[in-house]
């Protein structure tokens, strides 16, 4: 058994295809959709938790890649650069899930990765640019 949170990025031409149906039917995966949106450029983004057998999971990932989707492991996606963080706290009122929490009385900020839904709001809200996404660096299984 494997349980993995991932983000799928769909290019515009795939947005309308029944990808999830295939994941369930062809690969016998349990799909728990956490968040979905389509941006103005018609690119889709789907955040979900997949569970099923290790083999089926690997096959599904290969299939998704062949379909031209970008796959990110959620845990890796948002990084909090503690070396750049000044512990101001500005991000804590922006983060919708309290993944960025302010500890009192220490008055320092902590990133609880498991609560992060990769909405990316913090990336531009952090004045010190201490929040980063791995998209620019690596982490995409589909190049770019």
């Amino acid at each position, binding site marked *: 058994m494997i349980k993995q949170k991932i983000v799928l990025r769909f290019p515009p031409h795939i947005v309308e295809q029944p990808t999830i149906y295939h994941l369930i039917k062809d690969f016998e995966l349990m799909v728990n959709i956490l968040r979905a949106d389509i941006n103005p450029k018609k690119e889709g983004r789907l955040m979900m938790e997949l569970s099923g057998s290790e083999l089926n999971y690997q096959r599904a990932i290969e299939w998704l890649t062949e379909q031209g989707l970008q796959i990110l492991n959620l845990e890796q996606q948002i990084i909090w650069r503690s070396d750049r963080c000044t512990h*101001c706290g500005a*991000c804590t*009122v922006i983060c919708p899930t309290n993944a960025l929490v302010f500890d009192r009385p220490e008055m320092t900020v902590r990133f609880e990765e498991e609560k992060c839904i990769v909405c990316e709001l913090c990336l531009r809200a952090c*004045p*010190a640019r201490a929040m980063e996404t791995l998209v620019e660096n690596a982490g995409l299984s589909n190049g770019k």
Partner: protein
Amino acid sequence: MEVNRSIEEINEKIRNGQVVVLTAEEVIGAVKENGLAETAAAVDVVTTGTFGPMCSSGVFLNVGHPQPRIKLNEAYLNGVPAYAGIAAVDLYLGAAAIPPTDPANRNYPGEFIYGGGHVIEDLVAGKEVRLDATAYGTDCYPLKKIETSFRLAEINEATLYNPRNAYQNYNVAVNMGPKTIYTYMGILKPGPGNANYSSAGQLSPLFNDPLLKTIGIGTRIFLGGGIGYVAWHGTQHNPAVERTGSGIPKGPAGTLALIGDLKQMQPHWLRGLSYLGYGVTMQVGLGVPIPILNEEIMGYCAVSDDEIFAPVVDYHHSYPNREAGNLGLVSYGELKSGSIILEGKKVPTASLSSYAGAREIAASLKEWIEAGQFTLSEPAAPLPSVEAGIGLNVMPRRNPDEREE
């Protein structure tokens, strides 16, 4: 016994390794426990600190003459314009400057990825910075164009000169409008969805000497991780505001102009910042030592967050239109608890100034003094305080073509 200490006596104790220093946070508990008189008798110095965004900051650079010489007319450091309207190879780079190529708020809300504050951070970090400059050429300064790079250590002087730092109190910003706004007080969600403040409160320098009885021109301070000095009162210095019984202003009041040698500062305490939809600025770390000359001064230093109040101001309408009035006062104790009650509604709070950073600065300054590396200076002249009668002017709006001779 009445406490009556001079700065010279304190410095003697620093040199002998006998000085007693507490941070402005530690001293609150000490006074509560042992009383004012006893604490004043025991403690020689209280250290303060603050680490917040301070737009009115910048650096004077003398980049040295190339061969042949040049009189810089237009100059860019890593693409960010520096003011060249002073002597030939002198420049002033402001923390809030942005490159002419930055789309700014044409891409609303603009990201402001890189600007003056970031160049200063890069310089202090020892990075090589690109210089692109042009000149009109003179008989004495023939060169008309230069493209080169340098590191901080390779130029002559780099003097941090911040016209306005260390704001004594500040607004708490909220958004009473219908949609999210992007301000120098951060992202403000409608609702109001959040209330942002920017002061270290009880640790902040000017809350510990609210009437400027010890801080003056020439006061030696912690600045950007190095040593700096109070140069003057800051721009928009406005001491004559309403105050509490213990002298604490109930809104933005005093400010300091600070100066120091950039070459001995640290990038950790001078950080370029990007405020979404607003612009670039710099987070400046500074700390001021307060000499406990007598019980009265100790009384000021014992101030706690619950006794310091800031006005809640609407940044959707009131602030931009310069309309008077606020939505009430809240204490820093409330602000730091994580939420305030505004018009019966609970609003989450966030700070733009780092309290953890302020703590670290006050602790470093304390260490420096205890280790005998930092002595206190006698101010050369006092700063204008409440009785100086200065206030804030409003810019006149009139037809400039009809101006009087």
